[in-house]
């Protein structure tokens, strides 16, 4: 009898100990999961910097960033990535110039003009644009847009910066539309009512009150779109032609992203290291955009309240 009680007690003690241990284990597990994101970002940053620096050292920072000729496989190789940097910037600016007005106007339509039931039908369709894989955009670009451009502008080949800009501007639409719409809907109705009561028309109210009030949210949407455009690889690779020319609107060009993906599979030695350096430049661009986005979103969260 006594022995049984004793074993019972020890069993209970064991159980309590197991419970305490599992509690501790789970605590540690959740903590590790929590800091996993920090670890990943650290890993990516360290890898990007470590693998990107050697080639820049060997080539020279000035020559690398400002060199106008990229001839990685020539007998006397040259590694200047200015064409890629400029192409990426021009491409992104072009896509923003086309995508932002259209996206912003559509966001205005969804948030302020369209009847709610119509807006609820259109919104999922726009979200669908975000879900289409980038290779599908590329496929349509290369099989419809590129021949079209070649025919209209009488070019031997339609693969060009212009084609890439058009594809990118469609791809950034969903981020611009959804973020700007959220920002526009969050404008306090009192602002708009005051403007209407003062005799402004609905359109005047939208453009002189609502949009200025939502500007940091709209800016966040634009920056998000820019980030997407500058980081896009596959769709651009399929329509831009991938020749390392200095950018011209109807010329075949190479973006930062496509320079990496085009040569990575067969590269070696300094060429491979130079590709990692391109990735480092791209990574720095993206980090800059991320920080900017974060500042804008914070500003927006404060302004909304």
């Amino acid at each position, binding site marked *: 009898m006594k022995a049984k009680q004793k074993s019972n007690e020890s069993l209970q003690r064991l159980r309590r100990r197991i419970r305490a241990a599992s509690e501790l284990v789970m605590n540690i597990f959740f903590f590790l*999961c929590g800091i996993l994101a920090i670890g990943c970002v650290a890993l990516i940053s360290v890898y990007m910097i470590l693998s990107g620096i050697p080639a820049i050292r060997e080539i020279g920072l000035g020559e690398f960033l400002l060199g106008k000729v990229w001839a990685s496989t020539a007998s006397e190789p040259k590694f200047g990535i200015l064409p890629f940097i400029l192409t990426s910037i021009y491409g992104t600016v072009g896509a923003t110039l086309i995508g932002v007005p259209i*996206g912003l*106007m559509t966001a205005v339509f969804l948030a302020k003009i369209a009847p709610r039931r119509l807006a609820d039908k259109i919104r999922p369709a*726009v979200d*669908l644009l975000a879900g289409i894989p980038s290779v599908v955009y590329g496929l349509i670009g290369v099989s419809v847009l590129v021949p079209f451009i070649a025919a209209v502008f009488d070019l031997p080949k339609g693969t060009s910066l212009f084609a890439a800009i058009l594809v990118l501007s469609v791809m950034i639409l969903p981020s611009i539309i959804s973020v700007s719409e959220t920002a526009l809907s969050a404008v306090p109705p009192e602002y708009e009512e005051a403007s209407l009561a003062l005799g402004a028309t609905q359109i005047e109210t939208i453009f002189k009150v609502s949009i200025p009030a939502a500007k940091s949210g709209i800016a966040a949407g634009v920056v998000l779109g820019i980030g997407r455009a500058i980081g896009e690889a596959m769709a651009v690779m399929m329509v831009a032609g991938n020749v390392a020319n200095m950018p011209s609107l109807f010329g075949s060009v190479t973006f930062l992203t496509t320079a990496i993906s085009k040569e990575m599979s067969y590269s070696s030695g300094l060429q491979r290291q130079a590709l990692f350096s391109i990735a480092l430049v791209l990574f720095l661009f993206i980090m800059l955009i991320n920080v900017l986005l974060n500042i804008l979103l914070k500003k927006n969260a404060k302004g909304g309240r």
Partner: protein
Amino acid sequence: MEDRRIDQRLPARRRMYDRVLRFVIWGCAVLCILLVVSLIGYILIRGLPNISWQLLSSQESYLNKTIGILPSILNTLYIIIAALLIVLPLGVGAAVYLNEYAKSGRLVRIIEFTTETLAGIPSIIYGLVGMMFFCQLLSLKTSLLSGALTLVIMILPTIVRTTQESLKTVPESYREGALGLGATKWYMIRTIILPSCIDGIVTGCILAIGRIVGESAALLFTAGMGLKLLGGFFTAMGGSGATLSVALYIYAMERGKFDVAFAVAAVLMVIVLVINFAAKQLGSRLKNKR
């Protein structure tokens, strides 16, 4: 704001301003809708007729001169399963940590910032880091496993964000009730918190599947471009193979077989449509619960 007609007494210039801008807004909205409809319509019209049972159920054969995308379908499936199996505990765990355990606001802010950063890094950079870290450093070679692990980092933010959103909707009283009855923290999370935010987790999974299906740049250098059947799940994990998106790229750009590429695009499009619909459905359920 019921009466939206322009007041006829307005000066002509303001009336003009109103008309022109209203026209521009409608024009842009119509353009966007036309774009969506024509894009999807075009893919389906050009792709669906090229889909045949033989295409979906066999692999490429040089002898019979037939093309099949079964290997790519299986690879896509395998990568989805592997990536989700790994990312689910990690992502849900991170969200639980942020919402239930973390005490220091500064650490939470840092974690949230890095999670956002991860979401903004372009896939080509994931591809490079995955290639260096998983394929070379951990010597997993170019394989589906390397690809899946790379995607794990990529979709981590999606899972964390959606799980966190739905953890926030679990009423505080549930936690207080469970703890008041003497449950330990892990017991409370296991039996009360996680079951009541299951639809948020599922929504996250669906969004993550959408991203995996559409991903190509990150997989090109990590999972490779093989188009052969790899066998069962575990043998396939060690082999290199193309997912549907990568296969689309190969067929369109390297083989010039646009018919097959459009067929793959149509398959992808159908998957995307299903995923979007499912996510919408779950999302609205989540909203109703709130």
